[in-house]
């Protein structure tokens, strides 16, 4: 029997290498006898997104349909080979229904593992990071990783909001030139120390994914009243973000989404 269809049934954790080997085996056996029909039906329904679980999923991530505070989680879960349901909630549903009130902590993302719900994106990122070897084992590197993640979370949380667009723009100008710049300067300094590498050791960690997330959001104009040119004063951060985009971790994840 095709080991890959077995894997899809039982949803165990598997490595990226196992998946592609199984894929090759699968393609060649399916040319053979009668049982190929069974594989075909099965493979057609799963080939597009081998790691997305759609039913009775052990791991369910719920967030909006965007990168935001969940992309690093998605990338880490994929890298860990953990099949998960990537549940995306429409923002209109979130605000119009009881969904927000009924969600533990009244915010997204939330992660469900073995039926138990966990909140707080960074806590979830760290779990997924540990599962995918994208979280440092060394105490001081882990502390630096945590620090960078927390810096971005704090910057986002403290970002001024105002229903009046002009007031919001003014508040954000002060913010981005003041407290936010202090924090970005610090992360930029860490990025400089990384040389041509990553923040917390040899490989990409969730700390680097958080840098990428912030740079990506601002460069795409998704940080209201803070233009893409804001990043020009943090060249090391921009360079690090580019290195993340060129990494195997990043490329593999987005290649899997493109299928």
């Amino acid at each position: 029997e095709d080991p890959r269809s077995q894997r899809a049934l039982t949803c165990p954790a598997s490595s990226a290498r196992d998946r592609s080997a199984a894929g090759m085996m699968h393609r060649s056996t399916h040319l053979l006898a009668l049982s190929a029909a069974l594989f075909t039906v099965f493979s057609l329904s799963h080939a597009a997104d081998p790691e997305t679980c759609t039913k009775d999923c052990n791991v369910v991530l719920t967030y909006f349909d965007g990168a935001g505070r969940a992309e690093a989680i998605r990338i880490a879960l994929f890298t860990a080979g953990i099949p998960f349901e990537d549940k995306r909630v429409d923002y209109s549903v979130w605000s119009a229904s009881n969904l927000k009130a009924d969600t533990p902590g009244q915010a997204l993302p939330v992660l469900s593992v073995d039926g138990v719900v966990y909140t707080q994106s960074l806590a979830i990122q760290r779990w997924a990071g540990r599962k995918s070897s994208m979280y440092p084992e060394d105490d001081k590197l882990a502390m630096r990783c945590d620090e960078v993640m927390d810096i971005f979370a704090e910057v986002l949380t403290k970002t001024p909001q105002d229903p009046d667009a002009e007031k919001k723009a003014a508040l954000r100008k002060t913010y981005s030139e003041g407290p936010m710049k202090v924090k970005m300067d610090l992360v930029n300094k860490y990025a400089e120390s990384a040389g041509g590498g990553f923040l917390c050791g040899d490989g990409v960690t969730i700390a680097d994914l958080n840098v990428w997330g912030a740079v990506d959001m601002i460069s795409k104009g998704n940080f209201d009243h803070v233009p893409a040119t804001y990043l020009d004063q943090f060249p090391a951060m921009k360079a690090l973000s580019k290195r993340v985009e060129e990494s195997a971790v990043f490329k593999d994840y987005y290649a899997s989404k493109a299928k």
Partner: protein
Amino acid sequence: ERSAACQVAKLVCVLKVASMSNITLKYFDGGGRGEAIRIALWHGGIQFTDERFTYDQWKEIKPTIPGGAVPVLEVDGKTFTQSAALLRYAGRRSGLYPEDLVEAMRCDEVLDIVSEVLTKTPQDADVEVKKAKRAEYAAGPMKGKMGLLGSYAEQSGPDGFIAGKSFTIADLVLESTVGMFESGNFDHVASDYCEQWPALVALAKRIRAHDIVAKWAASKAK
């Protein structure tokens, strides 16, 4: 004879210190976001310089601090910021951080919930505006988050702790938070605010009675 023993003891002490990390914690002279770090380092027998300053001194010290906020931890010449990051480091080194990954996730989640509750607390120069905003906050978003902590306290049962079976840094932070309300240190929110979550209050009591916390309090009293 005693002096020779003293010399040997001093030598051993110096050698011990020389082989350990050089750690300095910088924070205000008070609880807040620094106390749990102090307790964890102390519990782990980790030598550190506990550099404390007053709010008056802060103005001069602030420009020298990366990130512009404290606590910060200096370890072997490198500075680290963000209280939860420092606390996790201290917790890992002192056996107060879960080894089990989902328990660690819950521990992390609790730290972040508390941090978010504090960070989003409304501030306003106008006392009446601040009072009104905080009333809304306490009846709304904060209630949702504290209620979630209350549900975790319930789930942990009469002998458990907030992240699971073992005592962790999340418990230190939780007790400090409940204590803040109970001692009236959360402006414009009544000191009995947490009583709507009996399991939370009971857990805070249990944490205060825990060996680690009791011994820390006793050591400070000297």
